[in-house]
């Protein structure tokens, strides 16, 4: 009780201070308006950016008698240099002095805007807050002497990575483009696949300090209105200083925090996202991250690779079965080994039992400890393998495979059978396409091993039942995580364990999309026609 109290008090303290801070900040900034003096405007911007060295200020004189002073402000590296050249060129050289003589109906600002600025996205701004945000996100600001407003010209030119093959999900057959860190590129990759006016992109800004752009993408008419509303609601509720990656958003909007399972699907593949959008799901794109999250997501989705839809249905079905089988191996192999060796030796055929017993003769540890040792070693190796520099990779694999594996067996610390079980588990784990599900299995495996060591197979069954109960309590944006198995929906079985031929997948998942279920009206007779994939 006292611990809880202290925790709550601390939480409250933090909450109140952060709220006050934001309130005062926003109050301060909203009141600041631009003034007519160019000097003081520039000074103000400089001060509020703390004289940051990447702010470039250039003052030019234009007009008939060079009497109009214009300050051009932009952030170095955030804008397109060629576009800036054009802008300055048209301001200094191309503009006719007669065009910018203000009359009664036109002001200087609108004159310049009309005649000098050749770029598409332009707006007039009157307060510092918006202006600074714009300068920091790739706009050039034109401040004009004696005018209390600024022209903000959008010429963003960020340094960006080209579209490359995604590292996290490779495939043999299928498109090789992956999302990048640039939001504009990502939306264009989606648009390119779905050229429909119904693909709606709604923009949001999250993060008090980072002001990260977040886009909600869905297909109007397919996505359930309730889910779109819920996504908006949950994103609006986020009150945090920084969103640096999609993972941050994912963690803040998921239904259940206390679970090892991912309840939100994330991918780097635009084709996968497009497919899910067409099933009526909602995608969330975050600027600065090549990962896109899709809600609501079900457990079966983590077993589906996008390649499944690009090859023959029977082969894809076989691969699906293989993945589910691998899921169980990765989850249970070490614990079954422990349970059988410790409690149920009678299950093994005699010859196998004798050979395992002979291997284990000189080993000082019980099976559980042996398994724990090997599993931990492997987890360490894997983590080291992910984080280490590429150059030392070779040394690592030699140390890992030869020195640890071989030597451990020869030194009589672990048995050969155990090494086989552990490596099989590890390889099976890699078969699961979604990395975040694979990680959660790694975690649960240790719990299963402990249960197997204490209660044998009864313990393993206990673990499985508990796991099932846990999975059944999970929901992703209101949709039961285990559907369409539980609740069982016959129509949706076409794309779960089996991958039915595309012509038979005429309906969208029921629970995700209630209003527009039928997706095509094909019948097998139309087979000779060539059809593009989903």
């Amino acid at each position, binding site marked *: 009780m006292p611990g809880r109290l202290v925790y709550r008090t601390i939480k409250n303290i933090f909450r109140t201070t952060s709220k006050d801070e934001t309130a005062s900040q926003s109050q301060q900034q909203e009141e600041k308006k631009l003034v007519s003096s160019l000097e003081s405007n520039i000074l103000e911007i400089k001060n509020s950016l703390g004289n940051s060295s990447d702010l470039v200020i250039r003052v030019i004189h234009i007009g008939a008698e060079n009497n109009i002073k214009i300050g051009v402000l932009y952030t170095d590296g955030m804008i397109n240099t060629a576009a800036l050249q054009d802008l300055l060129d048209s301001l200094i050289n191309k503009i006719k002095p007669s065009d910018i003589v203000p009359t009664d109906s036109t002001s200087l600002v609108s004159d310049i805007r009309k005649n000098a600025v050749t770029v598409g996205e332009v707006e007039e701004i009157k307060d510092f807050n918006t202006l600074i945000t714009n300068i920091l996100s790739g706009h050039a600001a034109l401040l004009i002497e004696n005018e209390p407003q600024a022209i903000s010209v959008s010429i963003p030119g960020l340094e960006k990575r080209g579209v490359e093959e995604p590292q996290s999900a490779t495939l043999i057959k299928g498109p090789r483009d992956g999302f990048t860190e640039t939001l504009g590129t990502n939306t264009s990759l989606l648009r390119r696949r779905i050229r429909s006016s119904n693909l709606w992109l709604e923009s949001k800004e999250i993060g008090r300090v980072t002001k990260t752009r977040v886009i909600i993408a869905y297909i109007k008419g397919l996505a359930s209105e309730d889910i779109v509303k819920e996504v908006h609601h949950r994103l609006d509720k986020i009150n945090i200083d920084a969103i640096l990656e999609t993972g941050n958003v994912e963690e803040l909007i998921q239904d259940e925090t206390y679970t090892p399972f991912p309840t939100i699907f994330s991918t780097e593949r635009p084709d996968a996202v497009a497919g899910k959008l067409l099933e009526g799901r909602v995608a969330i794109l975050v600027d600065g991250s090549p990962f896109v999250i899709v809600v609501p997501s079900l457990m079966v989705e983590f077993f589906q690779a996008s390649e499944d839809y690009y090859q023959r249905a029977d082969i894809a079905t076989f691969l699906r079965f293989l993945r589910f089988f691998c899921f169980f191996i990765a989850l249970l192999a070490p614990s079954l080994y422990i349970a059988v060796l410790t*409690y*149920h030796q*009678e*299950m093994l*055929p005699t010859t196998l039992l004798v050979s395992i017993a002979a291997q284990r003769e000189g080993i000082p540890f019980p099976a559980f400890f042996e398994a724990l040792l090997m599993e931990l070693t492997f987890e360490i190796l894997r983590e080291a393998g992910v984080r280490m520099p590429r150059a030392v990779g070779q040394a690592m694999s030699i140390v890992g495979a030869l020195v640890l594996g071989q030597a451990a067996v020869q030194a009589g610390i672990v048995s050969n059978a155990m090494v086989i079980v552990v490596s099989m588990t590890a390889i099976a784990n890699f078969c699961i396409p979604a990395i975040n599900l694979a990680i959660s299995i790694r975690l649960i495996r240790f719990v299963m091993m402990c249960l197997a060591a204490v*209660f*044998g*197979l*009864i313990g393993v*069954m*206990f673990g499985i*039942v*508990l796991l*099932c*109960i846990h*999975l*059944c*309590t999970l929901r992703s944006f209101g949709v*039961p995580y*285990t559907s369409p*198995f*539980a*609740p*069982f929906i016959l129509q949706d079985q076409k794309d779960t364990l089996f991958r039915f031929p595309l012509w038979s997948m005429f309906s969208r998942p029921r629970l995700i999309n209630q209003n527009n279920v039928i997706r095509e009206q094909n019948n097998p007779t139309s087979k000779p026609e060539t059809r593009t994939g989903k």
Partner: protein
Amino acid sequence: MEEKVRISPFQLSVLTILFTTGTTFLIIPSTMTAETKQDAWVSSILGIIICLGLSYFFIVCGREMGRKNYIQYLEDVYGRLLGKMIGLLYVFFCFNGTAALLSYFGFFTTTQMLTTTPIEVLHILLAILIISVVRAGLEVLARTGELMIIWVFLLLLAMIVFLLPDIQLERLTPSFVASPMNHTKAIINFVAIAGLPLVVFLMIIPKHINRPDLAKWNFIAGTLIGTGAVTVIIVLCILVLGASTTARQLYPSYVLAKTISVFDIIQRIESIMAGIWVISIFFKTAIYFYVSVVGFAQILEVKNYHFLTIPMGMLTVIFSTIIYPNIEFMSHWDAKYWPPYLIIMGFIIPLFTLITDKIKKRFKSKKASNSTS
């Protein structure tokens, strides 16, 4: 206490199947063969018919109840106080049922699989499962059932296929020799273990079904599949082990699984087959526990039942060692008192309630028509 949880008719069938097969798989072959020897399959088929009739009877009761659960209905019919007292009898029945099933599970595992583990630990293990699932609610229970029933049927199918080589049809002969008296006893046992406990589903149908109109056939089909699977196990026991061996065993179907040996590779897989019993006992216990907790919450008229699960679960763990102090007491009590107790709880009280309600309603409508005319 108003709960807006709804399960689908299909989920109801799943729960019915798991509930009827629960402990029945494990113990009924020996009770049946003890009475009617190799004719046990005949009595179990007759038993199925009676069970189907019973499930139809429960559906009829459910129709009268409308959108109320059983305890609310009892309060309606008998008045608040008497209704609550009869409701308490049912809570007591389900509470005992939960404790007894924990005990069954404990006896089974400690005698057959984990002989050195203290029985209380296993009771606590199962109790953790049922507490967590009932806390999560009926929907989660039903969904878990859908996930697990596939495994029960796969294992059952595997067992049947693996045992096919060991079947000796002559074990069924001589046929039709059991006396009608023995048949009656066997049928009463069958119905008391597999059919009459279905009375607890009156807490679920029709209140918690999203399509009550479809619930009827799904409930009856569930009963049919469940009791049918039990009959298959009984027949298999007779065909493989023989009637007299089956009757002598405490857990004949477990012994059945022990005899599996395919090409000397798949052998002694009874520990895996135990999955069938563990899963179905878990669901039977969970349903009993759910009904006892929900019933108790209904009687106390509290806002929700979730907070009652932990104390009630702990109480069942304590009573699970008291209720059956040893296996002898268990077999004695189950043989002597269980059938009459279940006939009273599962048939006589609901029937009496139904008749009283009908009479009351007729009386009321007559009164109403009298006053209007």
